[in-house]
């Protein structure tokens, strides 16, 4: 049952991921006074890319070809085991150290893909992404550790699935939640860490690594980054307001599943709008000030952790 549930959740998250990114772009466009593209555009982009030819660098080795699969695979893994739909799903694989390890594996392969083409931009993006990934790791750890301490477990699914809203019971976790938001922005290469819409190679982080990918490989990598964003948005949503809390008593019935999916879509729309608002209101940070940003995230996480530990 749990395996089926995990598979359903993974498919659902992958399916809504392009919508989320389209929705964020639409909201941003509206906030900028533009008409904006349809939120369904990423689906078309994905389909178009899947039909196209692949051009790969003459320097590229087999590593280049495995990258899209591993990057998307790790994201799918995270989407399957994390408590995103939060019906009473309790996945034993959602140990928070394991999750951060799996996500790091994805970043590592993305970085290797950036290096493999042998272009200057790829290496630059790879170096920056790896720096951020290496420094985000402890911040992510302390953030999830804070939630774990609040609920007395190491499983992310139990942190959420135990029927209480963590930050209401332990107010210190509000800080951890803020840290999680900062970590999510860094992990997903959003403002103020990276500009997802940039065309300037010298300011790129995530884009620079996938400059060499084309066709279906690019489609998979784009889908991976969209899915990752969705996973993080839903994770924040789950910590903010677990669906189990809303849907107490509804079990694995179809009605319960339907309600959970409904809650998921509502969360996506609200948090996607909030992300667009955030990205419109703030400017991108200089890359060499990134250590300050990551230090904020880390200190917030540690503060939440220690307050929860003491209180």
């Amino acid at each position: 049952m749990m395996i089926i549930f995990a598979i359903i959740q993974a498919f659902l998250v992958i399916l809504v991921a392009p919508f989320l990114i389209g929705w964020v772009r639409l909201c941003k466009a509206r906030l900028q006074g533009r008409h904006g593209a349809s939120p369904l555009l990423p689906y078309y982009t994905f389909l178009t890319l899947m039909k196209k030819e692949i051009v790969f660098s003459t320097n590229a080795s087999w590593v280049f070809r495995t990258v899209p699969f591993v990057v998307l695979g790790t994201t799918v893994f995270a989407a399957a085991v994390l408590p995103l739909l939060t019906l009473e799903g309790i996945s034993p694989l959602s140990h928070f150290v394991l999750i951060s390890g799996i996500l790091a594996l994805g970043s590592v392969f993305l970085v290797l893909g950036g290096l493999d083409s042998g272009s200057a931009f790829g290496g630059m993006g790879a170096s920056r992404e790896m720096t951020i990934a290496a420094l985000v790791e402890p911040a992510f750890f302390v953030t999830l550790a804070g939630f774990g301490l609040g609920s007395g477990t190491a499983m992310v699914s139990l942190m959420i699935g135990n029927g209480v809203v963590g930050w209401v019971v332990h107010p210190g976790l509000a800080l951890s939640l803020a840290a999680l938001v900062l970590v999510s922005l860094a992990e997903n290469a959003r403002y103020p860490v990276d500009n997802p819409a940039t065309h300037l190679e010298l300011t790129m982080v995530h884009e620079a690594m996938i400059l060499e990918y084309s066709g279906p490989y690019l489609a998979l990598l784009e889908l991976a980054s969209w899915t990752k964003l969705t996973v993080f948005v839903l994770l924040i949503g789950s910590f903010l307001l677990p669906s189990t809390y809303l849907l107490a008593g509804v079990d694995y019935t179809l009605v319960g599943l339907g309600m959970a999916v409904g809650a998921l879509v509502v969360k996506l729309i609200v948090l996607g709008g909030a992300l667009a608002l955030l990205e419109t209101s703030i400017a991108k940070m200089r890359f060499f000030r990134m250590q300050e940003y990551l230090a904020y995230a880390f200190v917030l996480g540690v503060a939440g952790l220690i307050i929860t530990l003491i209180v």
Partner: protein
Amino acid sequence: MYLLKLWGRLFFGPRVTQETKDFLPKDSELEQVGHELKSTIKSLYGGRSLRIRAVDGGSTNGEEIELTALNNAYYDIDRFGLSFVASPRHADMVWVTGPVTRNLARAVKTTYEAAPQPCIVVAVGDGACTGGIWKDSYAVVGAVENVIQVHIKIPGDPPTPTEILRGVLRALKSAQR
């Protein structure tokens, strides 16, 4: 406080994008485009999402200014599913501007070759279409056609953003029909 003011302006401020009907012609005005282009766009999932790589083949920068304008809030090229990308590897279309100079001929050629097929080539501006006033100069190769195959030509020196959009959308529309 300033942030709240900003948000107020963002939420309730005017939307400046021009309505499509204001600058797009009626369907009856659509010209016929080439058979090859039609099948190309069809194969790109009906052309609902096309990504553009712009290449400067030695233009006066006039065309570039118009291309930049396409991205602004007034024209907002995004809503038609068109977007500029940073690498030819991501592109479905290559937009070339200017008479291709001898120094940039390689750049134009490699950009086209680096883009995955199918790839639509659009010549933007008189220089790109025919060579313009630089035609037959020793420093230019001439029209983009002399370097790579061209699917859509948009004349004008420089063409206005409306004209550029009209040319491209016309091609897309006729292919979709």
